[in-house]
Structure formats: structure tokens, C-alpha cells
């Protein structure tokens, strides 16, 4: 397999822009993105707080991320590294979040279940981009031109606050899901699963078993 195709994506992205992306493409972003994870979801979706920005000012791009940032002299923010956090934990908020935020791009770590793409992302016309590595904190930090705003810093703390970043050549990210709900991780997982049974062949089971949700090693635990 060859190296991924590389592409620049201007935000907010149109449906046509997203339709052009293929699973496994490497994407670099220009425009605005914002961070939002469980703290922001709870505040908006469970406590009813109003989103501080209209959708058109958010780049329609929700980054599952907590930056390493601190307030410098004169109130400007210094952003060091930027790394995503695992997204599967946030699936339960996504349906409502798409409706309220107008997001069509979710950026994070590790993607969500293929079923979530089909049931939540496809109806919203949204796709998922995964960070690379994980932990390209320095490369992504370089792509942040400016902290445009930060909301709920006092209430939610640095890690959970809603940070709005102006970004340029921000990446790389890999296209994990497309507009039809296909998943790169699911495709790769299927290749690996083909080999798993042979790894365990000949290894006897332990004397004491364990309760658990799955004993099938081709399952995912997310």
C-alpha cells in the first residue's frame, strides 16, 4: 500500500468538499476549529447553556482535544502542544450535538464505532478525521495561528473549556469515516482479525476464568 494522498481543506467545509475525501487520505486544515468534549457537551446539552458562537463562526469543526495552554502576559494565551482525546466516549452526545452545533467535521483520537457513523454521522452529513500517532502535539501546535477565544475557562478548567483556534496547514489528520459511513479503522481491523485465531492456537486457557463482556478477540472493546 502506498503513502496516503495529501489534501488541504478550508473550513467550514461544504458537502462537496467532504465528498471528495477518501478513507485514509491525509488532510491539512485552514480556518477555525473549536474544542469540545464532555464538559462542553454536559453544559450545552444537559444544562441547557447556549452555544457562545453561531455555527458559521465555529468552522463547523469540533476537535476532541484539550490543549496544553496557559495565559501569558497581557492576557494572550500560549499554546504548546495539541493532542486529541479518545472520541468513542462522546458518541452518546453526538446526535444532539450535530443538531445544535451544525458541526460537519469531528476531529479526535481513534474514531467511533462504524454503527455510530451510519446512525449519527451520515444523517448529519458529517465525517470523522483522526489525529495521527497519536500525539503529534508539536506539529498540531505549530498549526495554531491564534487563540481566537476561550469560553467557560473558569467553570470547566483548562482541559474542558471551549477553545476556538484559528489554524493554518493544521495537521496531518487521516480520513477515518466518509459521507457513506465507511470506517478506516473497521477496514484495517478486519485485516488484523483474520490472523488473531492463529496467535492463540496451542496456548492453553488459564485455570481461573473471568467475567467479561466479550471473549471474542475480533470484537472491539470500545
Amino acid at each position, binding site marked *: *500500500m*502506498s*503513502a*496516503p494522498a495529501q489534501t488541504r481543506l478550508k473550513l467550514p467545509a461544504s458537502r462537496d468538499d467532504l465528498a471528495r475525501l477518501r478513507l*485514509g487520505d*491525509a488532510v491539512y486544515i485552514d480556518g477555525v476549529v473549536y474544542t469540545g468534549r464532555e464538559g462542553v457537551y454536559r453544559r450545552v446539552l444537559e444544562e441547557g447553556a447556549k452555544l457562545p458562537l453561531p455555527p458559521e463562526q465555529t468552522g463547523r469543526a469540533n476537535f476532541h*482535544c*484539550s*490543549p*496544553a*495552554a*496557559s495565559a501569558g502576559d497581557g492576557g494572550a494565551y*500560549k499554546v*504548546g*502542544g*495539541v*493532542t486529541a*482525546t*479518545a472520541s468513542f466516549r462522546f458518541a452518546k452526545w453526538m446526535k444532539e450535538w450535530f443538531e445544535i452545533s451544525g458541526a460537519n467535521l469531528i476531529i479526535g483520537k*481513534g*474514531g467511533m464505532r462504524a454503527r455510530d457513523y451510519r446512525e449519527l454521522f451520515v444523517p448529519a452529513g458529517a465525517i470523522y478525521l*483522526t489525529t*495521527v*500517532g*497519536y*500525539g*503529534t*502535539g*508539536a*506539529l*498540531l*501546535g*505549530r498549526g495554531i495561528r491564534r487563540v481566537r477565544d476561550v469560553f467557560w475557562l473558569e467553570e470547566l*478548567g*483548562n*482541559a474542558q473549556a471551549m477553545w476556538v483556534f484559528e489554524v493554518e496547514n493544521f495537521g*496531518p489528520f*487521516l480520513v477515518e469515516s466518509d459521507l457513506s459511513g465507511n470506517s*478506516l*479503522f473497521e477496514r*484495517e*481491523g478486519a*485485516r*488484523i482479525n483474520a*490472523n*488473531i485465531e492463529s*496467535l*492463540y492456537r496451542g*496456548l*492453553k*486457557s*488459564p*485455570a*481461573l476464568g*473471568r467475567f467479561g463482556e466479550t471473549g471474542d*478477540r475480533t470484537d*472491539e*472493546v*470500545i
Partner: protein
Amino acid sequence: MIAYRTIEQAAFQLMEKAAIDIPEDYRRAVAAMSEREQGLSCFVLKTMLDNYAAASADRRPMCADTGLPRYYVKAGNDARIEGGFVALEKALRTATARATKSIPLRPNRVHPLWRTDPNNNVGINAPEIDWSFEPNADWLDLTTVHKGGLFGSDYRMLFPGDGIDGIKRFLLDTLVAFGKRGLACQPAIVGVGIGGSKDACMMLGKQAACLRLVGDRHPDPKIAELEGELMELGNRIGMGAMGFAGRSMVADLHIEVGHTHTGGMPVSVHTFCLSSRRATVRIDAGGARHFRDDPKWFSDYSRRETVE
């Protein structure tokens, strides 16, 4: 007498070095794997190499997830510390808070129940400080490790009859479960703790992952051989970085053992990630600081079997 100020400054420098500069032994391992991999898995490893270079050039953290920054302290039996061990702990806590603001590091440490964030990576039992001692020495070795911790570690009580098969199955279970989608942020330096009490088993495996260089082998030749065998098994899963098809799951695998209950064989597995952050300094009796890559945490003395 080693001055308080010297210790605080050294600990601060360690925080910065660990957060920004990838250890050379691990970087070389990733570079070598990137030559063997293809496609997506290769792209991920090459991007990580770019990231290490960007972090060092810009003096910014390689990964925004600071993990749980913590310390390992090895004190020579004859080391003298201004203010004693309480002052040493204060120096490490002070340096952690100072580094969090000035590097900056992400303030990751929150109260486990109330989720309140003091914004300085310091709190109840945080940062953790592990202690060990060395005879016939008057220096102080400080190591910091910044390791994430949501995915990739597990513990299981096995029994003597389960044998090496049991260890292999448990290792495979852990690597397969957390390797999918790259939740473990592999390729990892895998640490396997075998024996001890439950807590010692976890501690030994964690230290095996975080405090030995890639390429290091256990001094017991039979354990060294098992390290190689388990590493090969991990890379036979067919999984690479981010859970893409490939052969770069395990950068190296280290085993540490402790004498254990006659009826049991507890095992723990830990994965030190693509941002394997560690840094070590020796402060000699005169207060001079000598930075190095190798924590040298395990010694003949620390692994001794005899009464003395």
C-alpha cells in the same frame, strides 16, 4: 549537602526535557520500524518522527496529553539533602507546579470524584514519588516519567499451572484489546510485571516499561530470552501504529519479577507510548547536575535475592 534549590531546579529541568525531547533510544526504534513498515502504518511513524523534531526545534511539548507526570527517586545511602526528605518532596511538587505553568504542560490532574482541577498537576498523592536506595553512594538520581494512562494496562492473577502459556495469552489479550485503533498509542515499550503482591506486580511492570532503555535485556538469561519471545509474539499480531495493519506493536519488551505467593503468578502489562517521555539527572554530593537518558533504576542491589 545537596541544596533544596538545586533539587527544585533539576526537577524543573527534567519536566521540560521529558515533555519536549524524545529519548534517543526510543526515537531510534521508531525510525528503524518506519523503514520496515509500509502504507498507513509507515506514514504514522514518519509523522511521529517529524513531530519529535518539531517539538525539539520549537521547545514545545511533543504531546499535549501530559499524562500523569511523576518521579522516581534513587538516593545514595550517604546522600545528604538540605531539609531532608520532606524538603525533597516539596521541591518535586513545587517544580511540577512551576513547569505546568511555564512550559506549559496540560494541567491533567483532577480530583477523581469532584473533577476539580488545581491547574498545576499537584494534588492528593500527586505527583507520585517512588523511592529506592543504593549502597555506597552519596548522589541523588531523579527521574521523571510522563505517561498517559487511560488505555493499555491490565492486571491478572494467574496460577503456576497456567505457565508461560498463561502469560502469553494475557499479553495477547491486552495488546489486541488496546492495540485496536491504536488506543495504546503503539509502538510501545511494553513492561510485564510478574510476581510480587498485586500492587508490587503493577509497580514492577510499570517500571519495566518506563525505566529501561529500548534494547536493554534482563540480567537473568532465561528472563532475557522470554523478553525476546514475548516481543516477537506481540509483533506477530499483525498490528502497527494506530491499529493499522503492520508489524510495529512492540518497540521493546521488558520483564521485571518479584518473589510471590506460592500459589499464584500475578501478571501485569503496561504500554509506554509513542511519546515515551522520561528524563534522568544525577545530582552529585557537590550539587553538580549530570543529565542522562538511562534511568538506571534497576541495579544488582535492587534486584537482590539474598537477605542482605
